[in-house]
């Protein structure tokens, strides 16, 4: 990857080379960069497509991802953008009647039809001779990989002129954290509680929507996380400027549903990538064209420990077997996508020095301590205790 985000690092003649860690998500404002290379969010004229005042939870990864993604799409489309939204958290927290956080034309129809509505919008705009107006469809993982999947696949197969963005928080959060087809193994949800011998969600199930999207050989597929927002922006901008069916799958932590501290949203998103559990890549016409490298693979434990949805793997009866199985998934991803950077590649990359150094390795269950517990989190905790 980094085609987009490598650009800022490429020194122009006579300029000092600016390293990624100086412009990455740790850096506010990108003041070291020339203005045209700064992030969309750093610009005064950003569209604030999802503007403030919405009712997302503190630390919501989806709100963050959607704001960056849609502002980037708005920039790439020159403000000429319309959106179709699936039912879900994003829809609910952004449009409590009579208020709306959306500063672009936006329609919510149903849970399972956002890709088809977006397809219809693109078709209508084409028939009206208004194809300069670009179309974004968006939804959570439930609306994308489960109930909306037939519509999504149809949209891909027809190569409809739609960019679909999935904000993946790995469960049905809007209905109270139930398992979806994107819920990872061992994760606790309201329907995959660690009861009896069951260690959370089952292994070997669930689907990999980006790979399935690639199998449709659509022009563009990418994954991203809210830890690397510049990367997300550049992918969205790139996708927006393309035509045909495009898909971006964004990893968005959910503090409420995952039992994580609100302040850890970015950290968790960074660790999921650095551990290899969530490969970040781009694919053009069905072929992987770039991968976001990892400087040094972080053990999955570091990722899991921050989330109470995995608490049953630790505690009094630790499930090392399960943790090993999760580690095996990460290792396989690292091999399969060739995620590890060579020494040379690694020099520029964020790694332990910048990302993992402040991880509270000796503090399991940190999430709940600093966070005011929500009802849901309490419920999760109580159920967990009850099972022991």
């Amino acid at each position, binding site marked *: 990857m980094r085609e987009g985000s490598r650009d800022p690092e490429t020194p122009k003649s006579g300029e000092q080379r600016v390293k990624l860690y100086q412009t990455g998500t740790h850096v506010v404002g990108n003041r070291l960069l020339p203005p045209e290379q700064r992030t969309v969010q750093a610009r005064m004229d950003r569209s604030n497509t999802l503007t403030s005042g919405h009712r997302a939870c503190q630390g919501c990864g989806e709100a963050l991802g959607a704001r960056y993604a849609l502002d980037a799409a708005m920039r790439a489309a020159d403000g000429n953008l319309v959106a179709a939204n699936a039912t879900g958290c994003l829809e609910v927290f952004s449009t409590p009647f009579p208020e709306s956080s959306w500063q672009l*034309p936006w329609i919510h129809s149903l849970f399972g039809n956002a890709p088809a509505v977006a397809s219809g919008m693109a078709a209508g705009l084409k028939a009206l001779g208004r194809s300069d107006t670009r179309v974004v469809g968006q939804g959570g993982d439930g609306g994308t990989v489960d109930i909306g999947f037939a519509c999504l696949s149809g949209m891909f197969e027809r190569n409809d002129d739609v960019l679909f963005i999935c904000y993946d928080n790995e469960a049905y959060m809007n209905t109270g954290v139930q398992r979806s087809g994107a819920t990872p193994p061992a994760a606790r949800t309201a329907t995959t509680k660690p009861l009896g011998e069951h260690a959370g969600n089952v292994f070997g199930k669930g689907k990999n929507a980006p790979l399935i999207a690639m199998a449709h050989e659509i022009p563009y597929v990418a994954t991203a996380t809210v830890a690397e927002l510049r990367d997300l922006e550049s992918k969205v901008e790139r996708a927006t400027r393309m035509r045909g069916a495009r898909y971006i799958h964004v990893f968005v932590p959910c503090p409420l549903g995952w039992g994580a501290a609100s302040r850890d949203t970015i950290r968790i998103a960074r660790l999921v990538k650095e551990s290899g559990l969530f490969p970040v890549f781009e694919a053009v016409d069905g072929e992987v064209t770039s991968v976001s490298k990892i400087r040094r693979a972080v053990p999955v434990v570091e990722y899991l420990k921050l989330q109470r949805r995995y608490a049953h793997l630790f505690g009094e009866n630790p499930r090392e077997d399960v943790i090993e199985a999760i580690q095996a998934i990460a290792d396989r991803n690292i091999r399969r996508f060739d995620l590890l950077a060579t020494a040379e590649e690694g020099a520029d990359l964020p790694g332990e020095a910048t990302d993992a150094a402040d991880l509270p390795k000796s503090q399991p269950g940190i999430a709940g301590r600093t966070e005011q517990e929500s009802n849901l989190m309490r419920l999760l905790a109580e159920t967990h205790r009850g099972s022991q």
Partner: protein
Amino acid sequence: MLSQIEGSKAVAEAVARCRPQVIGAYPISPQTHIVEHLSDLVRLEELRDCEYMMVESEFAAMSACIGASAVGARAYTATASQGLLYMVEALYNASGLGLPIVMTVANRAIGAPINIWNDHSDSMSQRDSGWIQLYAESNQEALDLHIQAFRIAEELALPVMVCMDGFILTHAFEEVDLPGAEQVDAFLPRYEPQQLLDPGDPVTIGAMVGPEAFTEVKYLMHAKQMLALDLVPRTATEFAEHFGRHSGGLVRGYRAEDAETIVVALGSVLGTVEDIVDELRDEGVSIGALGIKCFRPYPLDEVREALAGAKRIVVLEKAFAVGAGGIVGQNVRLALSGQAAQVFDVVAGLGGRPITRDSLRALLADVRADRLETGRLHFLDLDTDRVERELARMRAGERPGPHAENMIRDLGIVAARSH
């Protein structure tokens, strides 16, 4: 231009003259010939500036129409039976959002048991989905109703379902008068959306509405439907002025003014009923027919007025509410409050069983001779013996297995019947 063509082709030609900009197409019998012909017209560029979307399901077809309509495009789709049920969630969404989509329903039974033939159980199941429902008696009327439907839909910002009997109309070759494109253009103005997803003026469509306003939003839906009670007949009148023939409207009586017995029905069976009315009138029987052309909104006053003088009312319907009774019958009774007429609910033509002249004449003879009970549901041409045998099996405590198979076994013949 007078043409002898298939009903589906006639409808497709009429729809094309309405210049839809997006067509969501998904095959299901007996609607397929309509979308097939529209595909031809788009490929031949006889229908221009139209996106023909071959979607993956009826749910996607309706959803694509929702998206298209929301960006200001005139949207059309066609379906039947299971397909209509598969798009139900989107049907309610289209009406709730007030998007003027027009859809043909080629009426077909709903399974199980699976059955591809005609009845009204599909569209009747969606009578309360917030769509306007028009029922065609002939292919000419089906064609005409589509042209009217776009106008009604767009004027009220409500979706309209044009229901035509599957196979009986869709697959029948008969004479139709196809209007010229310029004639339709003069009648049907360009689509001016009442709400629009426009980057120049961003709006949010489909926001969540809580208890503080949901009732009011729903009330408005009802109020808009009630406005259609004026608009539907007005559109029919204007249509007649433009095209020189009467089609549509709310209800149509046939020799019903002074009739003691009135048969109420929807759709293509009205033709057979009218033939029988003529025969019986020739024999001196005081009988007439009432066709309900627009079932939603329900034209309560018009039905009441048309039935005011009747002593016996036979409601002949191709669907029923299982466990409750007639659907049209219940609606007709609503219009008769205080009137001392006998109402007979007769279910007929289920799953493609022909409604024959002989059976109808026998039914009406029974009605006139007071041999038919009111207050219970009658099934025309029901094979009582077969039903009784199956009921006896159940009473005997046998594990009966699949009823459908038993019924067909009892029948002895499966196929190869001439009619």
